[in-house]
């Protein structure tokens, strides 16, 4: 059987592109195997590491995975917890036992004492059951309720650009604005500082989202934050 690779590292590919032939290669990310061939299933960027061919998607909505750190918005009450919205077609639940290390006594308090509707919570996806039931945890530090500040929405595929290599971009944003910034993998970004700086960071993040593909973005963001 012929082992053949049809693409190079960092190629941009469209759905249905033949990536490689033969069982020697392994599909990863949004690549899939059909018979002996490997194809891409989305618009994406190729990353080849040894035998593994990975397709990093360049478009699409957020799909929850276990262990993802996200920002969720409370949108309803249950009997022992809350339901949340996460900019994804899936609903997610936050149980009352997952909001604090201490015992939450619901006999002497109500759920609304902890979270109200449209509050934001920074947490981690605890589990996804087979039936699609997703639970969130905000027990341990640094997970918590987000008090004050502003939440902005960006495309989830641009989140790695906002964080930058080893957190370089987010460090620039934090250092030059004195804002607290938390980034959720679902595409929500929480910014807290004084109003002027919050607006500045929001604009910078919008710039990163729009021009994520241009080179020299870091300098541009720096200039934007320090200039104005």
């Amino acid at each position, binding site marked *: 059987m012929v082992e053949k690779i049809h693409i190079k590292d960092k190629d941009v590919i469209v759905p*249905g592109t033949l990536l490689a032939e033969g069982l020697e290669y392994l599909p990863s990310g949004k690549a899939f195997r059909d018979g002996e061939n490997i194809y891409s299933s989305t618009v994406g960027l190729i990353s080849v590491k040894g035998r593994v061919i990975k397709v990093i998607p360049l478009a699409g909505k957020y799909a929850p995975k276990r262990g993802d750190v996200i920002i969720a918005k409370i949108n309803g009450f249950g009997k022992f917890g809350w339901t949340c919205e996460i900019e994804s077609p899936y609903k997610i639940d936050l149980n009352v036992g997952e909001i604090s290390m201490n015992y939450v006594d619901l006999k002497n308090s109500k759920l609304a004492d902890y979270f109200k509707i449209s509050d934001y919570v920074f947490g981690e996806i605890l589990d996804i059951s087979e039936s699609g039931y997703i639970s969130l945890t905000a027990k341990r530090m640094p997970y918590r309720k987000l008090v004050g500040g502003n939440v902005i929405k960006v495309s989830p595929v641009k989140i790695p650009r906002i964080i930058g290599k080893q957190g370089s971009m987010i460090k620039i944003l934090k250092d030059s604005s004195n804002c607290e910034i938390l980034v959720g993998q679902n595409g929500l970004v929480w910014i807290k500082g004084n109003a002027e700086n919050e607006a500045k960071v929001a604009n910078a993040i919008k710039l990163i989202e729009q021009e*994520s593909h*241009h080179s020299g973005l870091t300098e541009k963001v720096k200039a934007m934050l320090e200039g104005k």
Partner: protein
Amino acid sequence: MGGVGGPEKLIVNGKRLDGRKLNEMREMEIKVGVIPNADGSAMVTLGETKVICAVYGPKEVLPRRNLDSEKAFLNCVYGMASFSTSERNRPGPSRRSTEISKVIADALAPAIFMEKYAGLEITVIMEIINANAGTRTAAINAASVALADAGIEMRDLVCSVASGKADGQLMLDLFEPEDNFGEVDMPLAILPNTKQITLLQMDGMLTKAEAKKLIEMSMKACEQIYELQKKALKEKYGSEKESE
């Protein structure tokens, strides 16, 4: 088919009324991301036919009765703008548009990983801005690019072209006079990698040999369309390459 009051001849000196050869397509242009509010969108211009497609989703199924816990609910809506035809087209769903919506959904479904979006809905809205024959095939081309733009996981893109017969000659990509006064109109959609046919309709009469030849001709044209679709998508996403 065979209407009254059309031009006397549809082929003059071996050329069609708009100067094309028999196996020549109209000029096609594909633009990706024309509707920022949608999750994915595309515009296809095929000669004078123009269609805009917007894709929303995956999202919650509404109304809930459409929910399918095994696979996605693919909601395709084909519509013609009231100003798209020479005589005003009454807006809203009609017998024709409901049927075309259904065949388009069936043509797109084999390309999508429906089981990955179990219990969710994918909405594909196609609006014909200007109609000049071949609207359903242009809509399929636009929809498949818009689905890719929305990041929906797909096995392949879908390419589609209409061909037919007029003045006794087989020809590719009919335009309005050929569609109205010709003998046969045959839209076809394929998955270009496997050459599987996902849509094949025909009105009029063809011999077996003619039908075979026409399908072959359409398949070749689909390959050209596939290249255009790939080019359009790479134009939007290609520039991501530099910074990674």
